[in-house]
């Protein structure tokens, strides 16, 4: 299994991961993982549960420290950087969490405006206006702005999470299982919103998912992670003739194939 990259020219890539490894005790979750994410494109990493997708994302975001390897963001090394440099990287990021991760104690508009007020130092009035604009952009009524997260359905919380992720107009947006837990129609609505928002901002997107319908809809490029490594990557059009048994098995959801799962 060889690592394959969407684009080997690092100058055109927004994110470049080279031989990134991360272990928890004796469990090696990322194993010399390499991946390039082209600027202004949407890369989706697919793979089963426990293959290292979330850990990869957290290593890029700096929420986890990689044991070894290099993570370049706009050509600048982020692995092992100091707090100040990490803060500068964070300003480029937006993130939609799997469960929304909305702040329970804050109203919806305060959640969406959080990065603007506390991260960018914008005044509350202006931040509120932008927040309501973003709330409308993800298809919610402006009345929702005064609600608390617990008062919204899962789909609405996901939309608010998306509004918060794009509110600061980030250069790179991460999506962690954006359609998990949603019905197929709501999942498709979220996929459409992701495509629209990423295109509007001209941002680079990196998503992780095991939902193939979502991956096909939002991706320009797809990569597959298995046992902590990228085993295949290419454009979304190449997915159906990847030549990889692992990819074939995964995208068709077959139990038989090189990917085996222990049941007990």
């Amino acid at each position, binding site marked *: 299994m060889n690592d394959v990259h969407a684009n080997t020219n690092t100058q055109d890539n927004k994110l470049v991961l080279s031989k990134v490894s991360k272990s928890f005790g004796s469990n090696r979750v990322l194993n010399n993982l390499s991946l390039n994410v082209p600027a202004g494109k949407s890369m989706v990493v697919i793979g089963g549960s426990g293959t290292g997708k979330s850990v990869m994302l957290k290593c890029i975001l700096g929420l986890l420290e990689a044991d070894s390897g290099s993570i370049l963001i706009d050509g600048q090394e982020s692995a092992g950087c100091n707090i100040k440099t990490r803060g500068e990287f*964070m300003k480029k*990021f937006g993130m939609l969490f799997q469960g929304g991760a909305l702040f329970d104690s804050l109203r919806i508009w305060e959640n969406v405006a959080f990065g603007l007020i*506390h991260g960018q130092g914008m005044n509350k009035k202006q931040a509120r206006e932008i927040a309501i604009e973003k709330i409308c952009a993800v298809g919610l009524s402006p009345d929702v702005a005064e609600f608390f997260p617990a008062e919204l359905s899962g789909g609405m919380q996901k939309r608010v999470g998306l509004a918060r992720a794009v509110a600061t107009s980030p250069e790179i947006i991460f999506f962690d299982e954006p359609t998990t837990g949603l019905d197929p129609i709501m999942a498709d609505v979220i996929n459409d919103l992701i495509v629209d928002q990423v295109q509007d901002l001209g941002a680079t997107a990196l998503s992780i998912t095991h939902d193939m319908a979502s991956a096909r809809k939002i991706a320009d490029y797809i990569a597959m992670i298995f046992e902590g490594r990228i085993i295949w990557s290419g454009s979304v059009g190449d997915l159906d003739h990847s030549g990889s048994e692992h990819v074939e098995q995964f995208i068709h959801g077959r139990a038989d194939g090189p990917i085996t799962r222990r049941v007990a």
Partner: protein
Amino acid sequence: MIVETVLDSFNKIGANFLDFLAVVGKLARFVARSVKHCFTPPFYPFQLLRQLTDIGYYSLPVVGMTALFTGMVLALQSYTGFTRFNAESAIAGVVALSITRELSPVLAGLMVAGRVGAAIAAEIGTMRVTEQIDALRTLSVNPFKYLIAPRVLAATIMLPALVLIGDIIGVYGGYVVSIHSLGFSAGSYLTQTWDIITRMDVVSGLWKAAVFGFIVSIMGCYHGFNSARGAQGVGAATTNAVVSSSILILIFNYLLTQIFFS
């Protein structure tokens, strides 16, 4: 066989001791980071105000009730004991000194550990398992400054205020029982209280309260911040926060009493 069993026991003891040292080191780093972020910008005054209200104002009923009934019981029990030695006149002083030096700060600390320490650990623990703390980081906000520092500052400021109010209510509880149940004269009881109590008695209790407030908040934050996944993890964090802060309060109470009065 016996040698292997003995060596195995030593291995376990050694491993447990190393685990204990690792936890102490981790806690020490957490405390140092928390204190540093209490005094370095950016500050979140609205968060601090909210915590001052939650920790201070909303703890007032429980601390007040505890102090009131403790003062009343203290007067009754002292009377039962002191009448055997014809020393009833010492009751006012015993109540005042016991309340201000020991009972008010320790009981307020323990009550706040149960109410506030548990709430802090549960709230921050839930934020941890629902990725809200990670979300703070991705929004360029340091969770130590936004979540930990306001709680630590608020508890350290508000517990002395609660204890001062508890002192007054506790002494008043003893006064009420002494006047209405034990037949003391109001004037002589107040005079005896005023004569025996010194500034150091009250101030030492307030210093203790500040230390206890710091302990309660830091243990709540530490256990919540390092909470394991799931409901069980948050439950364990809450229990550990209350138990560890209660034990530390009792240990530090002894140490501070040694420092102030030895």
